[in-house]
């Protein structure tokens, strides 16, 4: 039982990362119907920015997190402006190929500049090294900080989407782009804002992963990116609470499969869940079935 609870704690930690990334996928998909493959690489760049802030500028954890989020926001907006905006009216497959192109560009561009070597985050100090023992369950301070930052960011996101004017514009554009434009909403800047918001969350996830798992490399984004996307599909793509639930679910499943089954198959199990959910309920856990109209 204690072993199980320990796995759950680890699962929630991993799930937080997936949930943060899944939010970016789900918001972008909701607003322009694009699987933004480059999102996973924004997360990777966030991890690198955090690494450089901590190692070379000797900044603390929180300033590094904020800087990484800021850099990723700018990067996300730039990617949207340069690569996706010219294709606003193109077929979906060409936008998707562009997204794959941007993803490869970021990965190999990063490899060119910082080399393919694995890098290690600096040792944490002070409160970050402590841990709490409850019986045989160990919860490290890092896990607590990681999960609380995730929850704070999610509450912040909910506030922006539900209570602010720009959030209202985001919801309007994702419902009906043309109608929103007729109502005087600037669609282009709303889409930019959505990309920025999603990328900021990905950047935060990158730094948190760097602190928690210590090692980063230019290709670190691909697999977590796919899993975060699966999490978004699981919860119902385009639905923000769905992405959070999906992220925690995928994280828990992965850790439990690794803990009790064969850890080699944990990725396969996640993909099997994806195919299963697509067959049983393609609109996802919280999604509504929409009838197709001519």
């Amino acid at each position, binding site marked *: 039982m204690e072993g199980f609870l320990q796995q759950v704690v680890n699962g929630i930690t991993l799930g937080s990362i997936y949930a943060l990334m899944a939010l970016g996928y789900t918001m972008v998909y909701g607003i322009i119907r694009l*699987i933004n493959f480059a999102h996973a690489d924004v997360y990777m760049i966030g991890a690198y920015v955090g690494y450089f802030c901590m190692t070379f500028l000797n900044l603390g954890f929180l300033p590094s997190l904020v800087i990484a989020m800021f850099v990723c926001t700018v990067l996300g907006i730039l990617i949207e402006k340069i690569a996706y905006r010219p294709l606003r009216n193109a*077929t979906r497959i060409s936008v*998707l190929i562009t997204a794959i192109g941007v993803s490869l560009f970021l*990965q190999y561009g990063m490899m060119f500049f910082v080399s393919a070597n694995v890098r290690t985050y600096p040792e944490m100090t002070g409160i970050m090294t402590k841990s709490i023992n409850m019986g045989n369950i160990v919860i490290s301070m890092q896990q607590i900080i990681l999960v609380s930052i995730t929850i704070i960011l999610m509450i912040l996101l909910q506030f922006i989407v539900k209570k602010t004017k720009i959030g209202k514009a985001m919801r309007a554009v994702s419902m009906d782009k043309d109608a929103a434009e007729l109502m005087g909403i600037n669609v282009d800047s709303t889409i930019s804002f959505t990309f920025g918001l999603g990328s900021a969350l990905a950047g935060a996830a990158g730094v948190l992963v760097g602190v928690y798992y210590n090692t980063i490399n230019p290709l670190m984004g691909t697999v977590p990116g*796919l899993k975060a996307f699966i999490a978004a599909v699981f919860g119902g793509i385009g639905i923000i609470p769905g992405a959070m639930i999906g992220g925690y679910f995928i994280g828990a499943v992965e850790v439990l499969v690794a803990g009790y089954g064969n850890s080699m198959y944990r990725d*396969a199990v996640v*993909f099997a869940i*994806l*195919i299963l959910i*697509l067959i049983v309920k393609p609109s996802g856990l919280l999604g509504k079935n929409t009838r197709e109209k001519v």
Partner: protein
Amino acid sequence: MKKLIALGLTYAVIQILIMTNLISDYLQATLVTICINIILAVSLNLITGFTGQFSLGHAGFMSIGAYVCALITMRTSTIYGFIIGVFAGALAAAIMGFLVGLPTLRLRGDYLAIASLGMSEIIRIIFLNLEITNGAAGLNNIPQFVNWTWLFIFMTATVLGISNFIKSSHGRACISIREDEIAAEAMGIDTIKYKVIAFVIGAFCAGIAGALYASYFYFIKPDLFGFLKSVDILVIVVLGGMGSISGSILAAILLALISTYLQSFPEIRMVLYAAALIAIMIFRPQGLMGSRELSLEFIGELGNRLKSRKGRV
């Protein structure tokens, strides 16, 4: 008749060039890559370009063909073993395509892309963990049977087979699904059946391509058939033009030449590749050929148009 002569000439010229050693071993490997990519791209074009079903799992089918063929030829190392291996590999891929396609082809658009991507990742992870496939190290010393003649036979058979399929009534049904699935259904076309047929044919051909790959390069490992390989194939299809078989063939040749050229700049090869990809999508999203076909008549017409333009100036 003209086509047959053109085909025969292509075969003969390259066969002579190989026999007189004008094509070096390195170029020959490029030639093999081109032929295999043509088979892969044309078969994916049937699924994505003609039937409009977006698949990101073609490398998965390819890997099934490669592994089945490799395992059979490593046990019966004769030319008959090779032929059986190719067809067994293709058949295994087709069966997998049927099993995966039947439930997932009910999904529309992007969901199918993700489901097929998930499928190919599962296949890769299974190959990575099975004992018979030797895990991450892969299979080595696969007997080499493939030469230019075999490649040419399989490539021509695939291209002709698929282009004839498209011109048949089944093919037209597939195209109607791409144009408008609801309208096609209203006209009495069993859309799921035709989507599955296109998917299975595509998987079969991808299996052949995988088998040829294994037999020529005599070494395969699961990592060769990852997500990036599926993307590579898709890029050929989109670059050539979705719904243009000759476009796929042209793009396969063009990309192989570019990648051979870029081999001398290994550090920035992938960066340039990615940048080119983005640029092509922004400036020519319909691909090189759009949905037109390159034929002898088309070239003639192009010449006439050029002439008349000159006349006007």
